[in-house]
């Protein structure tokens, strides 16, 4: 998948992702685990979606398939109309490199690189990146540029991870339990950063959580259980993160 095939300029409200009857079956030894049993969903440009569901409901699997980290067993996933189902590794790598920003529960920073370098490692290979220092300033870490991960708190590490994810100017931001390893106060700071990125940069954001309170900051909430979408809910009013409590 090349830059030519997927436009970087996205008009608000256009469909970014579309998943059609996506299933995923894991072979765990003799047992087959049906992680997704036929999921249909869309993600629109600029929106903030929360995927909500208990452990094992298939939300991480769905996120990984959307992000090109995993492939669906059946069904189709399109990104801006382009089918990424079954794309070869090389194309998926390019896709992740150019279009997708990831944030994980355990931050996944490079311990040998400073905050600035952790961002720079991505901007060095990106097509239209922002300045790494600017990205860190965006997440409120403008004064921690030269700190190594070991010198940062969990919340700070997660904010570096967010800066790293947004610094390449991705079309979508995929966040898997970004507050899962943090206490609630720190978690809220992280969510504020995500909210700000979504608002200021207009990056479509998918956020996975099993915490129903966080769902209140989303435009839409997609409920997953047992590998199926059980319900989709549109929030009439998005709550700013600082109003959230858990």
């Amino acid at each position, binding site marked *: 998948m090349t830059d030519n095939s997927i436009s970087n300029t996205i008009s608000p409200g256009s469909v970014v992702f579309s998943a059609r009857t996506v299933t995923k079956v894991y072979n765990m030894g003799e047992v087959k685990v049906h992680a997704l049993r036929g999921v249909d969903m869309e993600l629109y440009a600029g929106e903030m979606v929360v995927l909500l569901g208990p452990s094992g409901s298939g939300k991480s699997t769905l996120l990984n398939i959307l992000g090109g980290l995993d492939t669906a067993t059946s069904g189709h996933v399109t990104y801006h109309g382009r089918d990424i189902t079954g794309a070869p590794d090389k194309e998926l790598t390019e896709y992740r490199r150019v279009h*997708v920003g990831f944030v994980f529960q*355990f931050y*996944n920073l*490079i311990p*040998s690189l400073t905050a600035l*370098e952790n961002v720079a490692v*991505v901007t060095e*290979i990106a097509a239209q990146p922002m300045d790494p220092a600017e990205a860190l300033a965006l997440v409120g870490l403008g004064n921690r540029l030269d700190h190594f991960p070991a010198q940062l708190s969990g919340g700070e590490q997660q904010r570096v991870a967010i800066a790293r994810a947004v610094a390449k100017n991705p079309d979508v931001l995929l966040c898997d339990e970004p507050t899962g390893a943090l206490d609630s106060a720190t978690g809220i700071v992280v969510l504020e950063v995500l909210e700000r990125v979504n608002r200021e940069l207009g990056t479509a954001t998918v956020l996975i959580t099993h915490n129903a309170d966080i769902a209140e900051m989303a435009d839409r909430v997609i409920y997953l259980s047992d590998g199926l979408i059980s319900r989709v809910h549109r929030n009439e009013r998005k709550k700013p993160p600082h109003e959230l409590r858990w």
Partner: protein
Amino acid sequence: MKGQALAIALIIASGVATFIMSVSTMQSLKLTQATFYKDYRFADVFASLKRAPEGLQTRIREIPGVDRVETRVSAAVNIDIPGFPDPVTGNIISIPDIGEPLLNKLFLREGRLTEPFRDDEVVIGEAFAGAHGFTPGDKLGVIINGRRRDLTIVGIALSPEHIYQMPPGAFFPDFERYGVMWMGRTPLATAYDMKGAFNDVTLTLSPNANVNDVIDRLDELLKPYGGLGAYSRKDQLSHRYLSEEFRQLEQMAAMFPVIFLGVAVFLLNVVISRVIHMQREEIAVLKAFGYSNFDIGMHFVKLVLMIVSAGVITGITGGVRLGQWMSNIYMEFYRFPFLKYELRPEIVVIAAFVSAAAAILGTLHSLRKAALLPPAQAMRPEPPATYRETLPERIGLKRLLSQPTRMIIRHIWRRPVKSLLSVTGIAFAFAIMMVGSFQGDALDFMVYVQFGLSQREDIAVTFVEPTSGTALYELQGLEGVEYGEVFRSVPARLRFRRRSYRTAIQGLRSGGDLQRLLDTDLKPVELPLSGIVMTDHLGEMLGVREGDLLTVEVLEGRRPVLTVPVAGLVKQYLGVSAYMDLSALNRLMHEGNAVSGVYLATDSRYLPGIFKKLKEMPRVAGTGIREKAIAKFYETMGETILIFTLINTLLAGIIAFGVVYNSARIALSERSRELASLRVLGFTRGEISYILLGELSIFTLAAVPLGFLIGRAMCAYIAANLKTDLFRVPLILESSTYAFAATVVLVSACISGLIVRRKLDRLDLVAVLKTKE
């Protein structure tokens, strides 16, 4: 873990195998030697002389400390073998007319000893027989004292005196052109004009006898009869070569296993530390369930012992095979009648115990850490590893480095000791390769210096006794002889203060072209017109410097004792000779124009004709054809060197592969999480491979210069230990040796890199992200 354990086990196996091989070969050869010496009554003291009446034997026997005495007749002969054009020389030694020799008994491989008083029978040495395919019943012509005799071979034998056989004055064995043989005393004495006399005596000592006293007394007795100086076993040529070989084996037994074991211990330490680190949660759970520190420790000790056992068992099996194989190779060079291969159980026990002890000691630190970790702490995830900016970055190189390159450098910098040991481990692979090739390089160089720069004649003709210098003209008149130079060789004992050495003084014509003396830079130097020049090693042994006055006790003719100034030292790798201008030497000897022989430069097309003519000259005692001897020697050595190179390549490959592979696997295990994170962020496989393999490349490349240094140091150590008056091994390493070592190590490193790269391609991105470190 499987691959890593295998790699470590292989390294241990290599160490154990080299140890078992060297020690068992050495012990087997020593046992074989001791058995052969004892059963065949190898003498303790040897002496040659001009001629003494048989009655002197009684007086020799009366020397305190002498046990048995046997007098002999020994004759240098020319041998004529039908269908073999080259000149062949030999040494015929008498055996009693009836019965076996008292000392230095013969081991009959085939046939029988000579029948009493038969003057047409001869027993020949096995090496000589083998080179020409002789069997009992074959005939050969022997020129004794200028008269040809046709002798029938009746037996093929081996003697404890001639386990290693070298033509006199030569530097290589040449079984085709030099033979040892035995004949009845009476017929030999008759032919050699030694009736009722002897010119060789050997004796054994009673227990507690002082060998030096006996030698002094014997020399005293033999002096009036042209004694050439008695010597003990330790100066007996065959015995000395064997002793040198044992010393080399001892060195190998000490050096190689230590390297392998050292590398194995380091790798075990690294791998076990990593395993413990990765299993810290399991360890914590076990401890929470009530397992004691000792139980946990023992679990890992068992793991270490399993790896060590696999290595030790493979090493012993391989070592025994190699030992038997190597002993058999030695049998080609050393003529033992039998080989008693033995592997003493204590050697196996030592190998196993030392390997196990070293391995456990090496992992003790990590074991302790595992045992002492409080369970609660072990179950908590570890904080991110601490990194710092490195020195190269702080001095301003940082701007030039991409983030992946910074990752590589900081990772190396974070554990400097481990990185350094990895580099050292790979460096040893280079060193082992270099040690393997070093002997070949040194040998080539010694041959080049000796026969390319110094001794440049095609043929060396020696006369039966000192002859008039005019003999040169007769030889120069032969068709195909281009040029000739005379030489004189005088046996002498050189004394300086309390040190002395028996050698021969070579009288050469100053300004000669066929025998050149070389200075330390291997540039030809003129032989001074007065004074004595000697090999630097001889100078060192005597402790003389240029200008010192040397006492020369001539052991020939009227046996004058002279004082001669040392005019200089020259470089020579083989033997220990002293040189004088021929005229000056003859003046000192009160001889006119006497020569011992002639060096000839010839046109090789005429060689057969020249050999034919030389064989017909009664005064010619021997003809040395160096080129053929060297060629033959290389031919024999070639196969052995090739196999040794192969083994060394394998050993070096195992080390290089083991170290690189383990470093790579550990690095992969330590960094799979961050590499997977980078893959998720859109890094390609090639880009993350760069991070992992870049580190290994730096290790391997850094190991190149270090390896060359260590290799050179090891070769220098070997060379220093091989320094004897027989030969000095120069520290010469050809560039091809460096290149070959580098190739083997780099290829091994690349192979392990490729294996790890394949694992990198199969990195499970999703699984890595789900787990916390």
